[in-house]
């Protein structure tokens, strides 16, 4: 039991990229294979969830959906092949190398899952910007008509100006971000991947704030027109 726990602990340390090399027990090969296989299965399950998410995502552009679908299919093929390879290994060192490949060559949790969610988020924001542009155009026309009819439109013009500013900021923040996101490759440097993801994640968050403000402006103008 103790030996088994040691093998699992050693694999866990090795998989998280710690410098210390785990010392597998000579008879721990079977256990090592079992642990790595389970970890591969976890990643395959995550990919299935991502695949289902892509199928249900109505706002993903066809191009982005296609790119992500291809990525997931490719990773599933690779991980299944790796699983077969693990099953055939004859040394713990080989299993350890497979475990490193499972992490570094795919980065399912660190990169693929965020790629799916952030791409979807960016496409949702893009759709929201398009819808708000339509709202903006309608409100501009409605405010002009109300003015022409002699109606008091209060600070509708200021709200409309802010709405336009928020939309411009939102658009600028997300332009090109999906392409940048989808171009990030897996690799052994987890910090580099995190660093590449951060500005995209930040842009999605800041754009959400812009869009919330834009919606508040639009609702304010609508309410003025309803008075």
């Amino acid at each position: 039991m103790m030996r088994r726990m040691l093998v699992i602990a050693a694999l866990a340390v090795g998989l998280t990229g710690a410098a210390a090399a785990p010392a597998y027990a000579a008879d721990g090969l079977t256990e090592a294979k079992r642990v790595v296989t389970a970890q591969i299965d976890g990643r395959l399950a995550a990919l299935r969830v991502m695949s289902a998410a892509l199928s249900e995502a109505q706002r993903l552009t066809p191009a982005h959906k296609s790119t992500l679908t291809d990525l997931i299919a490719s990773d599933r093929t690779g991980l299944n092949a790796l699983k077969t390879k693990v099953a055939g290994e004859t040394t713990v060192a080989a299993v350890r190398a497979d475990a490193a490949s499972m992490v570094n060559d795919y980065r399912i949790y660190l990169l693929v899952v965020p790629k799916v969610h952030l791409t979807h988020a960016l496409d949702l924001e893009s759709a929201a910007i398009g819808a708000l542009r339509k709202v903006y155009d309608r409100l501009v026309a409605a405010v002009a008509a109300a003015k022409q009819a002699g109606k008091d439109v209060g600070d509708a013009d200021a709200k409309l100006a802010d709405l336009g500013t928020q939309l411009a900021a939102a658009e600028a923040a997300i332009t090109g971000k999906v392409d940048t996101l989808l171009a990030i490759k897996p690799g052994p440097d987890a910090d580099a991947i995190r660093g590449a993801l951060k500005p995209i994640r930040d842009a999605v968050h800041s754009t959400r704030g812009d869009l919330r403000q834009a919606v508040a402006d639009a609702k304010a103008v609508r309410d003025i027109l309803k008075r």
Partner: protein
Amino acid sequence: MQVTRYSARPDPATPPSARPDPATPPKRPAVTAIAVAALAAVLLTGCRDGGRRTAGIDRDAGTGTSSTTGSTAPTAGTQNPPTTPAQVDSDINTVDGLLGQLEGQLNKADQAPADGDG
């Protein structure tokens, strides 16, 4: 028909002085024709405007200028339909829905990755 009566030969029983002067064109048919033409024009204009409104084209929207009176009227087909509060509400609801979905995606994207850095 009035025209038929006036184009008929003069009644021999009617004294010549009472007959209409052949050199003078008859006035009542002309007045009737003008009235009919005017009525037709009014009806046609009404039908055309009705059709344009059905197609979502308001000739007075935007500039307030009739398309029949000046070149400032927007071209039909490129003009936005008039905005109604219901349309704005519908569009804003669409955006609210998108932002709701966005929250869900961001919550998932912000979750710490499982299995360490894998």
